[in-house]
């Protein structure tokens, strides 16, 4: 399948949504996005980690070292309260934009 380019903001939204379901490490986040999108979306590490660090700087997620499934030390990310609010805001605006685009495509 040809590579679909995701906008930076969209990736942020997906990461926040995934973390809403529970704390996760970087690899896990990429896996879940891949699975939840029926293997359509593949997040490259070169986009994932910068996005994670950016979200951490903005204070929407926080990180903590923990043990992964195969007993490997990994960094786990989780949503903060501000992150939860941001998720709601971004999801709302995404829905509005998507609806608007759909209308234009249907009507024009």
């Amino acid at each position, binding site marked *: 399948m040809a590579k679909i380019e995701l906008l930076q903001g969209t990736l942020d939204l997906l990461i926040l949504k995934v973390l809403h379901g529970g704390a996760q*490490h*970087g*690899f*896990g986040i990429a*896996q879940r996005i891949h699975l939840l999108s029926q293997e359509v979306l593949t997040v*490259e*590490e*070169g986009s994932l*980690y*910068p996005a994670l*660090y*950016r979200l951490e*700087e903005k*204070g929407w997620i926080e990180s903590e070292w923990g043990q*992964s499934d*195969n007993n*490997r*030390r*990994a*960094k786990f990310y989780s949503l903060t309260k501000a992150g939860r609010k941001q998720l709601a805001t971004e999801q709302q605006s995404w829905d509005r934009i998507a609806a608007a685009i759909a209308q234009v495509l249907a009507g024009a």
Partner: protein
Amino acid sequence: MAFPFQRLRHLFRRKRFEADMAEELQAHLEMQAAANRAAGMDADEARYAARRQFGGLDQIKEIARAQRAGVWLEQLLQDVRYATRALRKNPGFTAVVVLTLALGIGLNTVAFSFYHTLVGKPLPVRSPGEILRVSADGRRFQSPFSHDEYVDLQARLQSAAAVIATSPLQVLLTTSAAAGGRAAPAAVQLVSENYFTVLGVPAVLGRTFDAGADEEAVLSFDAWQRRFNGDRNVIGRTVRLQDLPVTIVGVAPPSFGGTTPPSAPDFWLPMAAQPRLLPNVDWLHDPATRAWQLLVRRRAEFTPDQVGAEIQVVARTWRQPDGQPLRTGVQTATFFQLGGPEVNAVFVTLLLAVGLILLVGGINVVNLLFARNAVREHELAIRLALGASRGRLLRQLCTESMLLGLLGGAGGLLLAWWACGGIETWQTTFMREITRGTWSPFLDLTPDALVFAYTLAIALGAGLLVGLRPAWHGTRVNVEAALKQKSSEAASGISGRRNYLLAVQVAASLLLLAGAGLLLRGASRALTTDPGFDAPHLLAVVAWSNLQTAAPNAADQARRAREIDARLRSVPGVVSVSGADRVPFSGHSISTFVTDENRWVNGCVTMHVDRDYFSTLGLRLVSGRPFTAAETAQAAPVVIITQSAARHLWPGKDPLGRSLHSPQRGPAGEPGTSYTVIGVAQDARFTLLSRVDDVDLFFPQAATAGWMVRTRGAPEAVVPSIYAALKEIDPLLESQSAVWTMEAGPMRVQWLMAEAPANIASLLGGIALALAAVGIFGVVSYGVARRTREFGIRLALGAQKRDVIALVLRQTLRPVAWGVAFGLAGAVAVSVLLTRLVLNAEMPDLTYGAGAFPVATFAGALGVLLAVIALAAWLPARRAAKVDPVVALRAE
């Protein structure tokens, strides 16, 4: 979210962050490999697949790093480290650039220090913005008040925290106990007791005045060094001032020179000492004596205007001697209390001139940077290939040039500090010499915070500006070609831009040289200008620097004056003596008059002289008659005018018999006096050597405290006899008087006023020319070095050496021509501006009437410029012709 803290924390925890990131990515890698194994790949393949999918680990790390806050600070430190290393590796290049920038920046710092000191420098006291000077006539801020008025103001002024009073400086006799009983003049200022406390100036040794003290004295730092050799035992010592014993209780700090610049006193005494110090006059109780200059410290919540308004209200009950009410004014006190459009014009010109020098030097630095970046092409190409962004490279190159700028700024500060020290010393010795040791102005040019900030700003700005274009061009490297080590034309700079820079240098140098030429011409004309009177044989005698200390009342003063007058006439070698209230070129007074045709004329220069004035000065009366003795004794309402005044007041008519009316009312309210014109004198220069005044008026008056003396031979020989004669009348008189020869005194100052700007301009012009010449030399040499192969081919094909040289020189011809054109245009503009400035009566005409288009001067400047430039271009061009074709063709 403590973001600022986060940024700083990141800086310190960088290692931990790097380790964390590495571990996190490694963990991800392993999990991916595990997933691949679970999907069926074998161990090795799984790992490789994971690595491949990951992409460039370091690239990811780099992008991730950039997401962290505060990373710009890290990158800046990194850039600075690289830059320092790069500069250290090229010490020759660094030295040349830093020296060039230091010269330009240093000159700018000196010019700004002057401007800041003379115009804006605050008094070296606590909270100087709160100190205001009060004037009694709204104009002059040395105009004095009486003691009663001072007390009144102190009691009633609400918007001020305190009022202090100071007397004008005097020159008094001292018998210093330290100097072995020898008498020497000293400058003493009487001040109110709260002077030092209100100003917030602590004593650096000992203490300041105690309440109620009247025999204490505070020494100035300069006097402490000069007269007492910095002896720490000076506290408690007694000196005799004017026969009054005073005890030295303290020494003022070195930066404090009093509040009446530019002079600084040697001693401060409390007001209460006045009656014993000067027994003939009463400054403390006589309501008609105005001897005190006032300063107020306003309360912080009031503006100066508000304080000024309140002072005017309080002053409504005060009266001038002629019965008029006072019109007070206030102004925030600065160190020199200079200002106004003329002063600003001078400084703007100076700052522009030194700015031009920085420009010329800066262009040299730009060329050097271009050349250097051409050499670093390979390094830059590799960095670009490895993934560095152009922006990052640009930032790093600019950091290098800004670092050079900072180093240049540091060097410039050193240069400025040295130059300012030299200027301070020079002007101190010069002024002491001219005024016979009695007057040394207090010029403190040490850089303060504002000057440092200015230098820093210029250094960073210059560094950035010179580095920007070369950096921009350096980062546009053709990576492929550079990696293959092919020399690229682009990075070494397009010749078009080089030429434009060259033209700018030539124009700036020509402008400065032409300006120097104008001023030099003016100075030489000044030296040969005939003032109109017999200057080589004239002396000015000023008895009693402060007339009020001479005799207590007018009758006594008149008697004294007659005595001095008679005695002067009997001194051997004296041909003629005349009383005069003003010495030419040493200050003048102006008034407004109305002609009998009802024309109002402002700016009339007025002088009060006795009947021998014109014969003493050697001025011819072209019509009418001189004053009679009776007219002089009674100050009759007659006036003698000059030819120029006649032309101005009654153009085309005979002025004799006509009258001038003074619009000022008398003390009882009666209308002003009318003066009849009885004579017309030839024109001469009285206020400034460079101009003949529009209207000069001479009124008859018996001599009071000033005389002009004409001698048979050289006036210097007569000076000692005059001092001896004054001493015979009264020993005190001799130490309080001053005798100057016209040429060594006031005229010398006038000449200096013309020479100093000329010398400065010549220095600046010379520096600019030298820098431009060095620049041209460099540019042409570089061009020759680049085209060595081409020259070798041409010579091998049969070209003459002459042709090759001509080829090189032709390249520089066009930019030089453009530069000359613009430079000449600018020079003409400056010349026109100078002549326009002269229309203001207070400004000396620096060109001394040379006019706006002095062709010879401009041609001379152009000639000097072209000669130097031709030499600078010809020397490296010669090398082009010496290329050995065989060697050149082999070199690749």
